[in-house]
């Protein structure tokens, strides 16, 4: 029995990286998935590949009116959205001495405000019938490094937002669970932004591996497995939680 049979899901940043892995695994578990992304070429190609179980919708998560359009599209057929994954995010490196206010604001905007808008749209559409919201935070939220100042702060905001949204839904009696997943170093394009100018790719990879008790990076599929658990009824007594999927990186 597929674990998400008959569910409708929307995954932001679903065109590539962790988001695409979530989309693929959701489809494999029986869900109909809306890939919401700014990258329409890649997103449409993935939707075509997974047709008829996946659809593409253009969504810049910082634009409130696009959220409304995306939610309307996803709910047009059944009237319901069961699962929302706020996965879209960006990373720029920088310390307290090198991060500009502009960079800080841009990262807070996409990562924190984008997730805020997603939760707002999700709660609105789910509050009568229930659902699951999963926000992608980061190991950096609880174990920051000096070099990803703005990113880590934005991801910490997501953890807090998640718990607050979960509390609100519980208080109101909405059957909406809201949980966060905190990936460690995951082998996608984004992680390589952390490579410094004096590092070869091999040196960079070795330096990442050395920071993890498991001695390796995680895979996008391993994050998707955790998201499926939190999206499914298997986690029906879990809300407001932060699930660290980080190879022991926060021990």
């Amino acid at each position, binding site marked *: 029995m597929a674990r998400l049979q008959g569910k409708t899901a929307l995954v932001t940043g679903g065109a590539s990286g962790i988001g695409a892995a979530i989309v693929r695994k959701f489809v494999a578990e029986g869900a109909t998935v809306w890939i919401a992304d700014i990258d329409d070429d890649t997103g449409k190609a993935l939707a075509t590949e997974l047709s008829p179980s996946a659809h593409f919708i253009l969504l810049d998560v910082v634009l409130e009116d696009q959220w409304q359009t995306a939610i309307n599209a996803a709910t047009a057929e059944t009237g319901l959205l069961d699962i929302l994954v706020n996965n879209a995010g960006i990373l720029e490196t920088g310390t307290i001495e090198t991060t500009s206010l502009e960079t800080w604001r841009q990262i807070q905007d996409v990562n924190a405000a984008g997730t805020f808008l997603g939760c707002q749209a999700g709660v609105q559409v789910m509050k009568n019938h*229930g659902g699951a919201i999963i926000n992608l935070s980061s190991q950096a939220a609880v174990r920051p490094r000096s070099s990803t100042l703005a990113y880590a702060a934005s991801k910490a905001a997501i953890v807090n937002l998640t718990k607050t949204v*979960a*509390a609100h839904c*519980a*208080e*109101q*009696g*909405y*059957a909406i*669970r809201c949980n966060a997943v905190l990936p*460690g170093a995951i082998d996608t394009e984004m992680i390589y932004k952390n490579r410094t100018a004096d590092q070869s790719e091999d040196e960079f990879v070795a330096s990442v591996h050395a920071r*993890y*008790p*498991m*001695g390796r990076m*995680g*895979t996008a599929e*391993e*994050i998707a*497995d*955790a998201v*499926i*658990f939190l999206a499914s009824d*298997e*986690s*029906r*007594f*879990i*809300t*407001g*939680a932060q*699930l*660290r*999927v*980080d*190879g*022991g990186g*926060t*021990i």
Partner: protein
Amino acid sequence: MGALDGRVAIVTGTTAASIGRACAIAMSDAGAKVIVTGRTEAGGKETERQILERGGDALFVRHDVTDEDNWRTVVDTCLERHGRLDILLNNAGESKGGAIETLTLDDLHFLLRINVEAPFLGAKTCWPHLKASGHGVILNMSSLTAQQPGAGGTIYGPSKATQNALTRAMAMEGAPDGIRAVAVLPGLTFTDGVLDALGTDTERYKEPLAKRIWMGEWGKPEHIAAACVFLASDAAKYITGVEFNVDGGGIGQMPTHSTEPNKFGLSS
């Protein structure tokens, strides 16, 4: 196809209608063969019977988890029967409530023996076999009380917090050996043990306590068991050294609760 097909698990503390039994049943339903242990023969045999009735493979072994020789017997029995061991669920535990002025040092030692020494003995005895498994997992049944003292007593929480520190140490040491270790933190869960603790006031406290849980309902052993199956499976193979809350959002951090009927449908 189950998430735990081909795996062999030892689950301690399975003799009551509680979390341990539910975990053993859920792991069996997911394809694992289980050795179920505990001190009370009748209750353990009942768990074994329920699993066999569902078509699973279970064997009860009498087990005092504070006794190192007992642990060797349990592990030897498991290896003779199945030739391997993949999952250790240290579920057996004890609680002792009371005010700090009335609790004794013996009470604290009692809790530390069962909640800290026993998982240590279990991990130590099972370690080489979990390492040989290639999928070795240690799950330690902790408690929300480790993070939120006051919800369950002056010394119970600290004993579980100590167990969590032990879990992180196991995860750190286990990573190079391919062994994962995770602490599972149930919140208020409706079990025989909790009912015993509430005593004759069960009905009086059941509803008020439920209102203090974010989701407005008590957890059920099945909710904890579903999390344990996920954590024991390869779907969680990049998860180690974490505290995994299955607590309906937590207890008592919320001043008001909706008077609306609960919609989560957990009772179904």
